[in-house]
């Protein structure tokens, strides 16, 4: 693994770093909004992977001249991954919006957006249910 290999794949290294950072945020942060942010970083890493993949060395923007006289020597960058990622970006925005909307609703219902506090509330609810229904089932639940 020499220097040129490292430089030649710099977009992948950045992709890996960004992806892992995103995942780490999702795993490590207890704040629900921060988790969404982590998720966003994670997705952005993928956008980067795709977009950098479409780049062809020495290629120009894939726009045809208006007279449609195309020089066969011209190298174009592959536009397809870019187009794909446009869709993925839309998906990402939708996910973020929905996620944040859920966070708002959770804040309304639980009064907090810290995961450990929410879990504690839910654990209490579950224990209470088990107590009630466990007894009702003759302790066999």
């Amino acid at each position, binding site marked *: 693994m020499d220097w040129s290999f490292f430089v030649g794949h710099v977009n992948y290294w950045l992709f890996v770093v960004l992806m892992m950072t995103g995942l780490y945020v999702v795993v490590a942060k207890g704040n629900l909004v921060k988790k969404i942010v982590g998720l966003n970083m994670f997705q952005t890493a993928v956008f980067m992977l795709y977009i950098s993949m479409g780049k062809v060395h020495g290629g120009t923007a894939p726009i045809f001249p208006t007279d449609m006289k195309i020089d066969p020597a011209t190298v174009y960058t592959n536009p397809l991954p870019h187009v*794909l990622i446009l869709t993925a970006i839309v998906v990402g925005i*939708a996910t973020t919006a929905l*996620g944040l909307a859920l966070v708002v*609703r959770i804040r309304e219902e639980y009064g907090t957006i810290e995961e450990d506090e*929410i879990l504690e509330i839910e654990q209490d609810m579950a224990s209470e249910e088990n107590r009630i229904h466990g007894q009702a089932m003759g302790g066999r639940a």
Partner: protein
Amino acid sequence: MATESVHDVALTLHDQLPILQLVVPFLAAPLVMVVGAGRGVAWLIAFLASLAAFAISALLLAQVIDGGFLSYQIGGWAPPLGIEYRIDAVNAFLLFLISGVSTLVLPFAYESVKAEIAERNQALFYTCYLLCFAGLLGVTITGDAFNVFVFLEISSLSTYAIIAAGADRDRRALTAAYDYLVMGTIGATFFVIGLGLLYMMTGTLNMGDLADRIAPQTDNRTIQAAFAFIVVGMGLKIAIYPLHLWLPNAYTYAPSAVTAFLAATATKVAVYVLLRFSFSVFSPGFAFENYTYELIILPFAILAMFAASFIAIFQTDLKRMLAYSSIAQIGYMLLGLSLMNASGLAATMVHLFNHGITKAVLFMGVGALTLRAGSSFYASIRGMGRAMPLTAAAMVVGGLSLIGVPGTAGFISKWVLVQAAFEKGWWPVAFLIVLSSLLAVVYVWRFVETLYLHEPARDAAEAPLTMVVPIWITALACVWFGINTDITMTAANTAAETLLSGSTGLAEPSPWTSALPAGEASH
């Protein structure tokens, strides 16, 4: 650089069936929102769209049940550049299941949604439901790998929304939806990373074309990594055992109709995608696949069969119990898959279908009980077998099918699965399948006992007819497909053969196939 338009003559409506399958529910979704005011209308539009989709899927299945496939080119753009819808026995069978279940769940949903979701949200609910439905159909029908991702996200996003709609009854629906959103997004993103890696190596996204181009470079690490990403990403959607953690809460706190629909379809679609990629895109002969299945999927499948069943036994909530039972049943499907032989695949396919209808009966039954008893805890549904004889009897049928009692659909799939294990010579696995069925006996007996052998906890009327009728149609389907295996086994066997024969390649050779050498697109 337009590709040539393939068809000069106008297509008949019949030729347009593949796109109609998708377009009908898709267009119905905004329509529901526009007319939203009267919920009866919203429901009616959703139901009609679903019914139409069901009819279309039946027509499609009839065309491909004996083998062969239909290829539909969106906008007349030829694959691999254009998006192709490719229908063979495998996905036609699944389309049939999805639209069938939806058509049965919607009549049930009418009363259930009225009781469980605030009135102002109901039109939005049906919109999301239709989007989810259309998304699932889209994932199944398309022959384009990236298209799978797009539809997957459409169905997922709407799924998060309709799960969260259960918050009117229990606020934990919100956290369930949030968890599912985080997990689902990561899963889908893994999937799309896998696609990116594949695209990098092949320069194409059409499944048939992908298969042709992957075949010569199976030793490539990038291809192998792509496989790992796709398996894990889809595994999350399937709820493979350690990745199942989103499922119990999502199923438990979602509105009853949503649970019935999702349990019968969503995970099944994910299994389908895994099958499609494992067999049609990557070909079944790849050594790395075999190892993945034998060393990772198989142990977790068996673990799921037992651990999830044990959890199910100890539950206090019937709905949650059924959710865990679903995880166990997914274990059976993955087991069939990891056998990697024709009968194993047939078992997976037939179990997809049979478990789909079985769970539809049970979750609809739970929905009806919840409507009358207020919750699905064992304590509140005690003795309801006497108050709601029709619903309870149908649930017993579903329970028998879940166990795999002869004469029910569940028996057929387990029978085929055990046979497949024998065929492979995996006697211990066959033994484990039977053993885990005994656990199913325990948890099914628990709810049957609760329903029948206790003094009723409350007075309640039988569920409304709009619920009882779809429940019973599905219950009878459980029995029918347990006795008459013509449709299911033929379709499953054809599907297994189709999958095992690997990719069929592109529908029509196109100049683009040769014009784009593999790997060129990645600098």
